[in-house]
């Protein structure tokens, strides 16, 4: 596609820059936003909002332009390949939707906008860099890059104790996890002498496969891998490394919650697939058993905890924990098909979660509902279209046919069935049934339980309220909901295109 590429072939710096071009665009725009923030009076300008949108769009264009390339950069520590293309698109959409839904919401808190948008862009760049890292040190650095921005964003509502508390918890526990990650990398390095995962792969599979690895190498490697897994499991919020999730999701601004639930989870899963597919080796240690147990614990815990949850944000947090359990099933299923299924699930998860959070924000903006699910009673008749969309997203999360959630579950489950994990699927299906209960509980509340509050009914019809709706449901929020709806439906009824896309990306994993 890009003919100039040939010219650069011999130029390391240029090639390296090309390999991180989509991230670079985001970072550049983040700096521009930050810089412009110095000059203007902040609360009443939209510059940073539009600039960050343009940045994301440019980055998407770059990804599409480079989509056929396979570029190694920075002495092989960063790679741009098919896997990146798919995951970048998912992450960039997560970022795009987050920015779109931020517009009115952040202005409400009267906070500096430029910093907010630039931090969002930095987080997105961090996620993308993480996915394209193939070097253990690089992975650590990009996780930190991503996380530090996310910590700040979590505590962005200054003066709000919940927000600050959430950020602090996230930070402390996140540091813990990072420590495990780097500690694991040390062990892996000690065992193999390599930091690049492809070199490690070669070391494991070709170097000593005939003679077998010595016992001490195996011990070192296994401990290293377990610790590394723990570091990533924290970001993927797998049980029992999930503890930060509900509190941070609850305390953070809802837009940031959305970014954490969609973008960070996608990035963590993607890098997990990248590492797992190349260096987790069953001849060293059977990691499938550990993943099996983690998956079952994660989804069961998430669903049980969500069951009686009354705070919508906490409920979505627990639901996202449970969803992580389902995503793991695809990885356990393994192979080309399993990873494809997981990537597909990740993409569909981005849109259905973003849609649900966008609607939480709509209600938050309107001040008609708190985070308490009880306040959703009878909303279905006052805001029919919004409630219908909410129901659609919740049905998607529950995995009802016609939605992307069903197709995602179908693919990950069939991947595991293919690898004969029948019991895992049995438990997962029980979990899905359990999960449907709390998703549908919200729908029931919206449509079948009346609020009994006469004032609100009157409010719903008065013209003053109509202007309030017009002022608070901004076009950008509506666009967010429409994009999410379209993709949730499209992935549900026309999955083959996306599966094909995901399958091509997965193929690049083995092009070493």
């Amino acid at each position, binding site marked *: 596609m890009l003919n100039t590429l040939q010219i650069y072939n011999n130029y390391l710096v240029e090639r390296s820059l090309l390999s991180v071009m989509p991230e670079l665009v985001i970072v550049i725009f983040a700096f521009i936003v930050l810089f412009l923030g110095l000059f203007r009076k902040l609360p009443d300008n939209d510059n940073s909002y539009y600039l960050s949108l343009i940045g994301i769009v440019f980055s998407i264009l770059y990804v599409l332009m480079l989509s056929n390339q396979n570029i190694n950069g920075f002495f092989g520590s960063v790679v741009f390949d098919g896997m990146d293309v798919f995951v970048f698109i998912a992450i960039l959409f997560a970022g795009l939707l987050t920015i779109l839904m931020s517009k009115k919401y952040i202005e409400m808190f009267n906070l500096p906008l430029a910093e907010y948008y630039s931090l969002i862009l930095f987080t997105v760049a961090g996620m993308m860099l993480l996915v394209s890292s193939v070097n253990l040190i690089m992975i650590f650095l990009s996780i930190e890059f991503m996380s530090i921005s996310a910590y700040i964003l979590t505590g962005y509502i200054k003066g709000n104790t919940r927000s600050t508390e959430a950020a*602090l*918890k996230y930070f*402390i*526990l996140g540091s*813990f*996890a990072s420590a*495990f990650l780097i500690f694991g990398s040390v062990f892996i390095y000690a065992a193999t002498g390599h930091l690049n995962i492809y070199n490690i792969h070669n070391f494991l599979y070709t170097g000593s496969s005939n003679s077998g690895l010595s016992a001490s190498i195996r011990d070192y490697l*296994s*401990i290293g891998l*377990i*610790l590394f*897994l*723990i570091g990533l*499991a*924290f970001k993927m919020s797998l*049980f*029992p*490394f999930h*503890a*930060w999730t*509900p*509190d941070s999701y609850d305390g953070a601004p809802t837009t940031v919650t959305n970014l954490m639930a969609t973008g960070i989870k996608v990035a963590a899963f993607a890098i997990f697939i990248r590492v797992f597919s190349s260096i987790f080796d069953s001849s060293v*240690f059977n990691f499938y*058993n*550990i993943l099996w147990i983690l998956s079952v614990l994660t989804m069961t815990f998430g669903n*049980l*905890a969500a*069951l*009686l*949850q009354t705070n919508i944000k906490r409920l979505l947090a627990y639901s996202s924990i449970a969803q992580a359990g389902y995503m793991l099933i695809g990885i356990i299923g393994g192979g080309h*098909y399993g990873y494809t299924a997981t990537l597909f699930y990740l993409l569909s998860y981005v849109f259905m979660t973003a849609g649900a959070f966008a609607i939480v924000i709509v209600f938050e903006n309107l001040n008609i509902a708190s985070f308490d699910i009880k306040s959703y009673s009878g909303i279905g008749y006052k805001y029919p*279209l919004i409630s219908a969309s909410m129901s659609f997203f919740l049905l998607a999360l529950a995995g009802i046919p016609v939605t992307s959630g069903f*197709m995602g579950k*179908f*693919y990950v489950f*069939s991947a595991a069935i*293919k690898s004969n994990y029948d019991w895992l699927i049995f438990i997962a299906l029980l979990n899905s049934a359990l999960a449907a209960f709390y998703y549908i509980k919200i729908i029931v509340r919206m449509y079948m339980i009346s609020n009994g509050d006469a004032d609100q009914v009157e409010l719903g019809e008065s013209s003053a309220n109509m202007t309030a709706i017009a002022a608070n449901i901004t076009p950008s929020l509506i666009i967010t909901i429409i994009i999410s709806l379209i993709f949730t439906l499209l992935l549900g*009824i*026309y*999955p*083959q*295109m996306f*599966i094909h896309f995901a399958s091509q990306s997965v193929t690049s994993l083995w092009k070493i």
Partner: protein
Amino acid sequence: MDTKDLLVWSIPFFPMLGAILLGVFGKYLKNYAGYIGSISIVISFLFSVALFITVASTHGFTAILYPWIYASTFKTNISTYIDRLSVIMLVMVTGVSALVHIYSIGYMKGDKGFARYFSYMNLFVFSMIMLVLANNFLLLYVFWEAVGFCSYILIGFWYEKKSASDAAKKAFIVNRVGDFGFGLGVMLIFVSTGTLNYTSVFGMMPSLPGYLVTIIALLLFAGAVGKSAQFPLHIWLPDAMEGPTPVSSLIHAATMVTAGVYLVARCHVIFSYSPFASHVVAYIGGFTAFLAAFIALTQYDIKRIIAYSTISQLGYMFMAVGIGSYAAGIFHLISHAVFKGLLFLTAGSVMHAMSGELDLRKMGKLYSKMKITAVTFIVGALALSGIPPFSGFFSKDAILADTFNKGYYILWIMGEVTAFMTAFYIFRIIFRVFFGESHVDPSVHVHESSKVMTIPMIILASLAAVVGFIGIPPFDHSLFYLFLHRDFQNSFVFSPFVNYYPWFLLSSISVLAGALGIYTAYLFYIKQAFDTEKIKRIFKPVYELSFNKVYIDEIYDQLIVTPLKNFSVYLWRVVDTFVIDGAVNGLAQGFASFSGRVRRVQNGMVMSYALTLMIGVIALLAYYFIK
């Protein structure tokens, strides 16, 4: 995607677009909703005619819209199978739908759910078109359920009425029984052949063991029994008359209920390789035809009589496809769709004029007040009774002649008796509604319906009068037979002809049966030659049996509903409350109180979180070292 494919996909596209438009913006469209809903169907009809001409002049083809689910060995496309059978069904479905939609503009005028009604109807037409077009069993199953769902929401359209929502529930639950079998059948097909594509599945039928083919065929037929209201699952259709009358006309007479017949015809390869299953189809059809006609004799509700008549006529169609006369079955399906759609529309017109009254005993002498309705009704009734040259004569006699010539004498006798009863009950309606003495409540102002309603009726009546001529010369040399026969050539001939009696001999007998039925009705209700009360007393057991619908509802109540209810109450009181609720609430409450307790300890929280994390780390490492 070439022009042909585009043509195919635009047929379901417009009803879908209409359904979405009316569903989302219905509120703002007001009275235009009716026009938009009708126009979308008319466009779809025009495209269907174009497709019909294309296929009739060339050959069938497969149009793939996109690959749907490719999961390792499981591959399904969103694709269609276009042959002469499907285009004929398409033209019928969209044609009748278009007329019923136009009629509905008048019938549903002023209803507060006007836009909602047209949205549902468009959704139904879309689903029905896709059901006809599907080229694999999964797509078929999806739209099989979709039409069932549309039927459910349309029966319960006036959901404030308890009888309507009850009827909707009954239809849905009874259909569930059949669809469960149908679903199992689809799964069994996939398990035994490894594919769901029609062509591949049919290709493999000859090589499958006989018992498997029989089981598959019977499971598929279970779905057909539910959807097409055959004995013993016919009980939902009469109750479904609670819906608006155009719905009864379109869904419960012309299109959805015939899906079962279409299914058997479409899967003729499967059924023909299992003579046993085919015979089950034929005899259930024959018995249902007889039973429903018998019940219809004594009912008083016009719509219910016509509903039983539908069940009975569907029985004829199953009889035909069960003895391997697929073309004859489809022929009757088409002509029945026309005249039964017409009968329902005219019944709706009567109901409209009588302010919702449907009881035969409260009518009479309406002929002078609503001539168009009366004449069109009589045309429909003559077609139903099989009087030449109306359409029913050609199609019904094609079936009856085949049963005789193929040696199914019992079915033939049942069919002839049913023909007699059919003519009797339909003319009983005519004589009691349009002629005889007036029992109309004087406060009701009887009037002819508006043009938007009568014109579709007139069109359908003209069609009912002439559509039979596609069946000339009668039986196996007719235009229709020669047109459609090609699609059924790859089926196994399990019931060859044993007699070769000429058509005029056989059809004169059934015309006689029909004429006799009409004459008997005339004697009863116009001449009043007999004292009906006396006859009722003499044949009391028989009368009671017919009047109480052979007590089938009561039998189900005793055998299934009551025990099930008791069992459910037991489940609810004991199992649900103590076991399930206990477990669920206990667990969830345990978690909730746990997390609540943790939340209270503000300072210790991060520590406890770190503790869980550490426990996790230790557990994972321990797992490695213990191994």
